[in-house]
């Protein structure tokens, strides 16, 4: 789980941003292309409906365009864009409901300790299993069931594969908070998914080739 070295794309990005600000605005289409999926998935991790996620993604890309002159290059462009996306998603959530959100979070923590599902053995589920809609749905639901503070960290770190430091930066929380939340999120995911995946895997094609 590490990011590929990306020194030269980052340099390319800085050049593109300078060119866009100097007037070559069409370049913005190219600048954001690598982030279309990422921004959508992060939006979806916050708002839950696909339509809302698409709206949030569009708003985030528009806001980033309008505010591009304020991007200082201290963080990576992607980190900056992710922070904008999270803000847009939260703004939308606040508009939709003033009740939900953080109130649920502490209740699920159970004194700070989450226990995994206990198993005696684990048969590896290969990525090919994701061709099956039911498996994809199980994963989507399990992530959706996490409360927002855990979902955000898990999606940034384990879906988008940001580093711990980048995750902390995007969410404006401390590195130790990221670690604690990430740990709980992962264990909660294991707790919900392991028993289900264990049942579902041998149903079709019982033996995989490896």
């Amino acid at each position, binding site marked *: *789980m590490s990011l590929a070295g990306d020194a030269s794309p980052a340099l390319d990005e800085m050049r593109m941003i300078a060119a866009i*600000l100097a*007037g070559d605005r069409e370049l913005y289409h190219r600048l954001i292309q690598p982030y279309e999926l990422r921004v959508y998935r992060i939006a979806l991790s916050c708002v839950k409906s696909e339509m809302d996620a698409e709206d949030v993604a569009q708003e985030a890309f528009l806001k980033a365009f309008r505010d591009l002159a304020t991007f200082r290059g201290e963080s990576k462009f992607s980190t900056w864009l992710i922070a904008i996306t999270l803000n847009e998603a939260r703004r939308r959530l606040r508009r939709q409901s003033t009740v939900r959100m953080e109130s649920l979070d502490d209740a699920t923590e159970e004194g700070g300790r989450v226990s995994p599902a206990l198993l005696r*053995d*684990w048969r590896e589920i290969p990525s090919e299993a*994701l061709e099956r809609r039911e498996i994809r749905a199980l994963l989507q639901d399990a992530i959706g069931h996490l409360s927002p503070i855990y979902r955000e960290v898990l999606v940034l770190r384990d879906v988008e594969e940001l580093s711990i430091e980048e995750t902390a930066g995007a969410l404006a929380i401390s590195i130790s908070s990221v670690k604690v939340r990430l740990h709980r999120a992962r264990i909660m995911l294991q707790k919900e998914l392991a028993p289900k995946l264990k049942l579902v895997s041998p149903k079709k094609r019982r033996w995989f080739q490896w």
Partner: protein
Amino acid sequence: MVIECRHVWDYISEFLDDSLPPETRELVQKHLQNCEICSAILDSTRNILVLTADDRVFELPAGYSERLHARLAREIHGENIGSESPTRD
């Protein structure tokens, strides 16, 4: 020194990220060699995270990219960004 299962569970996330101090990592590793339950928990968690990271889990809705770029195009051809950005083509 020996650690209990419960403590091993607390270290799973950092174990997967390879961010435990070497001594702790060694303790966990030793425990895992002799504990099938903790090994299964670790394997399942790792497996679930690999699946979670797969691009197939969350796919873009059909037409997303087209709609996004169409909206951006309207913005790009609309008002200026930045205060002193010259209009140059």
